[in-house]
């Protein structure tokens, strides 16, 4: 028997807030272990978005009438909530985008490609980035002649920090890094990475897609210049993302989208831009999405991000210990839950990850299989694919037990 782990959140009460978790799949309870791909949504978030459309749907920042004022108030209120969530100094440091991907593209395009980078300037990334933090920088290389360098990982899934130091030069202008790996779960020393970037005069961009939903973030303490994350991985709707930027960093960034909302004055052939952050929000924004994200932030803040993190550490540690006792199953990334987010990539001898996912699906268990949009990392570990389970506030030890039983079932089929 495993030692009784502390499950700090009241999971049955939380589950009751998530309509989809009441659903049965093939007459089994749904066990959702793919929150690293997208989280499920509590009824509070679902109701907030539908409430916007039912009661006060209007465009923001323009309409004089009551509905427009309400919509603007709620949309800007969501910006304030997000700012408080990551302890930004001001809501003006929060740009709403559609996704982490868009946020990172805004930085790559507006700060890198159209910004102050010169040919030969260097951008340092890591091999553990998600494709969304690789490909935008490829554009900067291809169109601006920037030089891309990558920090490798150790076999235990941690970054090779001594190599990072070697890669930094006077020509390093941008350092970009995942806060947490979406495959290994590794929590990177982002504060230290930003500090060393600043020592050579570079800005630090943080992909916090896998961190913001799961742990407390203080952008002032981290001192990162840009930080990106998505609403849909943190209980919010799809189609809403966040780009945090220090005021001076955002001022130095050119907008990606030209159009309504982002301008001050438009004349034939020329325009002047609106202030930050509106400069980056061309077109009618995802108003319902932002409002839903604001309510998701309320939900998480009420639980407390420290408690969320502790809960997930307990579940992850329990899973790591259970997996360690399974023969023929290999896990990737740190083996200590203190060093990783609730993301567990694994392979089973003689069973391809897609077959693992198919068989677990029969048991009502949702996991991810594939390259997880991290092909350079998969190449680093010489893996064509892995299975991946990821945990969130609505998962408990029973879910882990079900996963382990499912894995044994897979092993029977492929014995």
């Amino acid at each position, binding site marked *: 028997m495993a030692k009784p782990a502390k499950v700090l959140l009241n999971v049955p009460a939380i589950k009751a807030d998530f309509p989809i978790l009441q659903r049965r799949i*093939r007459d089994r309870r749904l066990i959702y272990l793919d929150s690293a791909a997208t989280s499920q949504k509590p009824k509070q978030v679902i109701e907030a978005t539908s409430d916007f459309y039912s009661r006060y749907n209007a465009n923001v920042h323009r309409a004089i009438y009551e509905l427009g004022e309400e919509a603007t108030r709620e949309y800007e209120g969501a910006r304030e909530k997000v700012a408080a969530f990551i302890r930004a100094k001001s809501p003006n440091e929060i740009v709403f985008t559609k996704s982490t991907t868009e946020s990172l593209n805004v930085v790559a395009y507006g700060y890198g490609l159209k910004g102050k980078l010169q040919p030969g300037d260097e951008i340092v990334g890591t091999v553990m980035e998600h494709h969304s933090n690789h490909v935008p920088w490829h554009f900067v290389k291809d169109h601006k002649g920037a030089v891309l360098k990558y920090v490798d990982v150790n076999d235990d899934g941690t970054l090779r920090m001594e190599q990072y130091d070697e890669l930094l030069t006077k020509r390093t202008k941008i350092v970009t890094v995942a806060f947490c790996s979406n495959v290994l779960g590794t929590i990177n020393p982002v504060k230290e990475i930003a500090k060393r970037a600043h020592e050579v005069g570079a800005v630090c961009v943080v992909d916090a897609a896998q961190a913001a939903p799961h742990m407390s973030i203080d952008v002032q303490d981290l001192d990162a210049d840009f930080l990106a994350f998505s609403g849909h991985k943190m209980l919010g709707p799809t189609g809403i993302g966040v780009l945090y930027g220090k005021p001076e960093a955002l001022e130095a960034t050119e907008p990606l989208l030209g159009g309504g909302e982002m301008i001050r004055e438009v004349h034939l052939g020329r325009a002047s831009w609106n202030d930050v952050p509106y400069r980056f929000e061309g077109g009618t924004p995802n108003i319902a999405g932002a409002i839903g994200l604001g309510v998701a932030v309320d939900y998480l803040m009420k639980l407390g991000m420290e408690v969320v993190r502790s809960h997930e550490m307990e579940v992850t540690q329990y899973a790591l210990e259970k997996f360690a006792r399974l023969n023929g199953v290999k896990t990737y990334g740190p083996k200590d839950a203190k060093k990783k987010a609730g993301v567990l990539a694994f392979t089973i001898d*003689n*069973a*391809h*990850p*897609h*077959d693992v996912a*198919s*068989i677990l*699906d*029969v048991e009502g268990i949702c996991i991810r*299989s*594939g*390259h997880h949009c991290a092909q350079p990392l998969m190449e680093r570990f010489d893996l*064509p*694919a892995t299975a991946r389970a990821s945990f969130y506030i609505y998962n408990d030890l029973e879910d882990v037990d079900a996963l382990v039983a499912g894995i044994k079932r897979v092993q029977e*089929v*492929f014995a």
Partner: protein
Amino acid sequence: MSASYDLYQEQILDHYKHPRNKGPLPGAALNARDSNPLCGDEVVLHVNVDSSKRISEIRFEGQGCAISQASASILTTMLKGQSMAEVEALNQDALLKKLGIPLSVVRLKCALLPLHVLRLALGDTKAVRT
């Protein structure tokens, strides 16, 4: 057994665990390779055709899920000794019927990858990914 375990029927597991006609075929006349970018499934086909335009030898190499690899193995057993006219007439329905398992849209890509590689090997440069 629930319906979805039908995916891993005896025949599929048998071909996956004990693939037929697997391995290299040095100097083969027709060769092609393709992969499924979503899954990383990979299938390589090597084919020799004799003077009477029949497939005299066929071997496959590859890696991937049970569905793609069993499908490749089963396809080679279907093709050996067939005339080129028969091979060209072989469509996906024939292969799927032989596999005999219910496939979701995603897994259909795995099952049909070997057939796609066959089309490439036969020189159909317009073969589109299924």
